[in-house]
């Protein structure tokens, strides 16, 4: 099932690598990736569109465990949303 994850991530060395690694290792393919600086330069915002046979709840909890991840929200990818991410 396709899902979209919205993450707020600390701008630390290796932070993006960490979350991409967890995503791959836990069995999710990344269909699109958007990384943007937020208003606060110490944080950035990541939007991931994912596909997998696995339950996205587990991935959400695994990503939330990363020290660099401040917040993570997930939702099913609606057709309307796909064009946005």
């Amino acid at each position, binding site marked *: 099932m396709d899902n979209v994850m919205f993450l707020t991530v600390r701008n630390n*060395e*290796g932070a993006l*690598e*960490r979350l991409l*690694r967890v995503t791959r*290792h836990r069995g999710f393919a990344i269909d699109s990736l958007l990384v943007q600086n937020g208003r606060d330069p110490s944080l950035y915002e990541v939007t991931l569109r994912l596909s997998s046979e696995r*339950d996205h*709840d*587990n991935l959400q*909890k*695994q990503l*939330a*465990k*990363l*020290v*660099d991840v401040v917040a993570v929200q997930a939702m099913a990818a609606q057709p309307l949303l796909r064009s946005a991410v």
Partner: protein
Amino acid sequence: MNGAQALCKALEAEGVEIIFGYPGGAIMPVYDALLDSTLQHILCRHEQGAALAADGYARASGRLGVCMATSGPGATNLITGIANAYMDSVPMLAITGQVANPLIGTDAFQEVDVFGMTLPIVKHSFLVRDVNELPRIVHEACQIAMSGRPGPVLIDIPKDVQNAICTAELAMPKAERVGELDRAGIHQARALISSAQKPLLYVGGGVVLGNASKALREFVDATQIPLVSTLKGLGAVSFEHPLNLGMLGMHGTKAANFAVQRSDLLIVVGARFDDRATGKLAAFAPHARVIHLDIDEAEFDKLRHAQISLRGDLKRLLPALAVPSHCEPWRAQCLADKAAFAFRYDAPGTGIYAPGLLAALSRQADENTYVSCDVGQHQMWVAQHYGFRAPRQHLSSGGLGTMGYGLPAAIGAQLGCPDARVICVSGDGSFQMNLQELATINRYKLPVKIVLFDNQALGMVRQWQQLFFAGRYSEIDLSDNPDFVALAKAFGIPAVRIDSRSHQDEAIRLLLETEGPLLLHVVIDPKENVWPLVAPGKANDDMMEGEGAWTT
């Protein structure tokens, strides 16, 4: 003060007393600073030994284990030990030297991207770019390693950072926030426990790591619910407790596996449904509803859906759930199974029966005895037959299954618990993976005892080839083993060889009465197998057994 000195000061401020390590080019400023610090450095003979010793230190003492190595091969040699700590949630700080900042990314001498290489096996990691960040990073690293679900943290420190002048102050500790418990979930869980007819506790290593053994024992005594334990949960409740049915899973007891399969409520305490514990997951505890207690929310519903998931400190959760159970017939059935399927030690023959020796050893050893083991048949025999009475006394590489763990872990445990008796139970295969650490035992005059079971084979692989590969034996023969007694003596460690059951009692007495280190080389039957065994892909109540009646 330079970065290396600031590192030592910051570690001292965190209460670190011992570092296991090995020097080299990119970490030399730190080794220079160590000379003026209160930190005791233990020189291991291989960086993997240092990392595994730090792991053993942490598991046995409950404190942070610290290991250190240089860049390049020093750092890569730590990796197995870091992975071992990650898989078993052991609090560890790994410090590596790195080539100077301007050289990073130039393929410099002894440069590897250890920060990148260890991303999958650390709870968190830091590459220190600015010396003034060092005190804060050390503090954060120690906090992260020890808090919540513990784990290893890496700090990679370029050599120029070690030499640069540091003007930053020591970081101040922040109070840890204590979360609220889920009161509605607790209310529901109490109702489930109270109404269950066949409730069972499934106890994991989280109880030990969370220092919740006392809370668990009180819960068991209050509810009178029987319990089974994972490999890492052994000792959380004494094996002598009447309601302890023993280990579940692939080499679990019949009583434990039958109880899980028949239960109608599984209360999972600090365990994670590991495949070695569950067997065929779809057939695991098929009639049970699940209450899952853990500090790590990511374990909930990962492998098995829980009707109720409660995240938090087990020391707080367990008392909140202690309600009387109403399961007398079930308890009686569990206890009857426990008695009917108890292990027997009257194996025929005159050779040494390893399970019997371990059972005898545990009967005679005092309560302040720690046992480390390696990986393979002897590891399962320790779990099955050595009776653990207290938490932290069973040091076993559960998640990663690291051959070569036992000897360095025993070194770490002995240094973490200087007044304890520490016994390393090993096999002839595993022992040769880190036997260089005999030199560390000799250097620091550590009274570590070693029981080396020698079946002249890689026994567990041989067992699987016998059972699952039609007896086609491939690369398991170790019949040309070295003379282990001579080997130990070459390292200055006394050693004795026994090969007959008639020598067993005297050997155990010698082992327990010798003040310094001793290696007991125990020759056993190469054909002996570990029973019972749940074959891969089978349900836990489908247990294979050997031909001997003594295995029940």
